[in-house]
């Protein structure tokens, strides 16, 4: 018995170590796990020779815990280790006071082929809430695990999970003349980091196309700001704006046909719409103040942007029709002396932005209906907030021990996470939209 525990701990450690070794970015929950719902995720069975290429059940347990909504039980607390539905004895689980149980099995079906089967149970009702068999591959197993997390999350919360989405961010490495900037894309849990651009000059403002396949961004590689768009998976890219002066703050419209961007070609920082197909430009703001950092409402019918036309930077909203004609203009923020870089929640009800409180720059949300402002962070140099596509979390950049780090906070301000990337300055996170659904595994 003692020996068994010892071995399983060693195995656990090995698994943990191997998975962390692959992660460029590590996510720590730094607060707010109090109300999390306990859930039992039993290590999945394995049918195949050698070790399974990924610890699927561990990825699922980590995903669920990271959401802040769930707390996966520690392996030592599991009272049984069933892999199949007929092995589950609900009575033995009931006294753990855990409502839900996840079991499953991974089977090798070919040299690189696998089949992942899982079941989610309501322990008290003694019934299955979800169950799927999903074909996968050696390199696709992490993604399959995230899909399972999405299914479990949606079955239990009624909201779509965002575990299969990605984040884009910029890292900087090296000092002074050796400084190098990287534009990276990773899974939402920080794994599979891939650098899609490196440059000796600053990179910033990655913006996802609504298809989740392209990024627009600002690059100084030519010694001045320019806007590019790049296919994330193929690597091919196009220069789309290189006018005299600023070319910055690209923001893809929800239908993908246009980008809002900031240009100063007419002498001052103004917002323009760029038509992707025709490359036509339409000027949207006409004010001697700074107008920048445009973001679209999810319905594509209005833009919010930062302007200091009132003396200090604040958030304004401009309605725009499909033909690009300007409608009503409205100031949205009045609290505080500095409100900037706003973006909408996926349901369009909230905006998140950088808000100064007594000289500290923090992440806040404002309810568009009530005007209520909620400050979500307590740090001092927070910037670049971006909603998860399911609206549950906001990812942002901040500073810790003189280093740029990414952090995330739940929309209610309860759950706080730190996303650690080894030895690099990290900034400018942007959470991808949901992937357009391709055929999911068979039921």
């Amino acid at each position, binding site marked *: 018995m003692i020996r068994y525990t010892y071995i399983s701990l060693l195995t656990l450690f090995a698994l943990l170590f191997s998975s962390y070794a692959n992660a460029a970015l590590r996510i720590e929950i730094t607060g707010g796990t109090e109300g999390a719902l306990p859930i039992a995720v039993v290590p999945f069975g394995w049918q195949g020779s050698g070790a399974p290429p990924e610890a699927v059940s561990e990825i699922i347990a980590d995903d669920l815990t990271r959401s802040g909504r769930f707390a996966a039980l520690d392996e030592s607390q599991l009272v049984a280790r069933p892999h199949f539905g007929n092995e589950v004895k609900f009575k033995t689980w009931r006294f753990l006071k855990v409502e839900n149980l996840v079991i499953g099995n991974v089977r090798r079906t070919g040299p690189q082929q696998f089949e992942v089967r899982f079941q989610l149970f309501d322990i008290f009702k003694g019934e299955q809430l979800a169950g799927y068999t999903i074909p996968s591959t050696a390199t696709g197993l992490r993604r399959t695990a995230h899909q399972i997390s999405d299914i479990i999350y949606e079955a239990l919360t009624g909201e779509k999970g965002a575990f299969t989405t990605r984040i884009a961010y910029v890292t900087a490495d090296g000092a002074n003349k050796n400084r190098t900037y990287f534009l990276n894309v990773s899974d939402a849990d920080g794994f599979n980091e891939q650098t899609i651009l490196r440059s000796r000059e600053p990179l*910033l403002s990655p913006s996802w196309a609504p298809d989740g396949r392209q990024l627009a961004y600002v690059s100084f590689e030519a010694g*001045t700001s320019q806007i590019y768009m790049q296919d994330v998976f193929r690597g091919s890219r196009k220069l789309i704006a290189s006018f005299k002066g600023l070319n910055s703050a690209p923001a893809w419209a929800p239908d993908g046909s246009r980008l809002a961007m900031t240009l100063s070609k007419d002498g001052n920082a103004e917002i323009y719409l760029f038509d992707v197909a025709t490359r036509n430009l339409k000027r949207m703001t006409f004010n001697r103040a700074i107008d920048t950092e445009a973001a679209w409402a999810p319905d594509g019918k209005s833009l919010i942007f930062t302007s200091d036309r009132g003396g200090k930077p604040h958030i304004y909203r401009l309605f725009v029709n499909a033909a690009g004609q300007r409608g009503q203009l409205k100031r949205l923020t009045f609290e505080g002396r500095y409100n900037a870089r706003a973006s909408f929640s996926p349901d369009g009800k909230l905006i998140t932005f950088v808000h100064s409180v007594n000289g500290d720059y923090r992440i806040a949300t404002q309810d568009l209906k009530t005007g209520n402002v909620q400050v979500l962070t307590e740090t001092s140099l927070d910037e670049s907030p971006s909603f998860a596509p399911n609206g549950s979390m906001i990812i942002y950049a901040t500073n810790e021990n003189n280093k740029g780090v990414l952090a995330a906070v739940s929309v209610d301000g309860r759950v706080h996470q730190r996303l650690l990337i080894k030895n690099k300055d990290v900034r400018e996170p942007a959470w991808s939209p949901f992937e357009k659904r391709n055929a999911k595994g068979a039921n």
Partner: protein
Amino acid sequence: MRKINLLLVLVMPLVLLLGCETPGDAAKGSDGKGGGAKVEDRSGASASGAKGGGAFSGHPLDDPDSPLANRVIYFDFDSSAISDAARDTIAAHAAYLTNNPGASVVLEGHCDERGTREYNIALGERRSNAVAQLMKLQGGNSNQMNSISYGEERPAATGHDESSWALNRRVEVIYKSR
């Protein structure tokens, strides 16, 4: 002749100071027809210093005692207003550009790290435009100046307090040709 030129360079700032005007609104740039802004590299016109008499023998831009030696203009937080002290520096450079039509500068606008990156890029441009505007008012030609903003991306000091921030809110005057 060279002596006279040097004298002019040294005296002009004083003359210009007397007629100093307040800067207007941000410069109305020329229309951009696309294509990155490039600095024309005009080589030539490298004058050598006056022989004897002058305390410094060398190029006026290399004279550590000249107001031209000062190549950085500092700003207050979220401001592009030019201080009185900075006006002397700008006047000296404007005079040099006036007397050396072949000379050109890049005006690099920078910000401290507070606030958002994109707003700071725009603020950095407003700072460099404010400097360019004043230089033009004092005789520099707009084709001798090129504004670029790096926002908070290239700090001069890397601390996270006011002493670093003050050094980072700046416009750097960088000579591309003399």
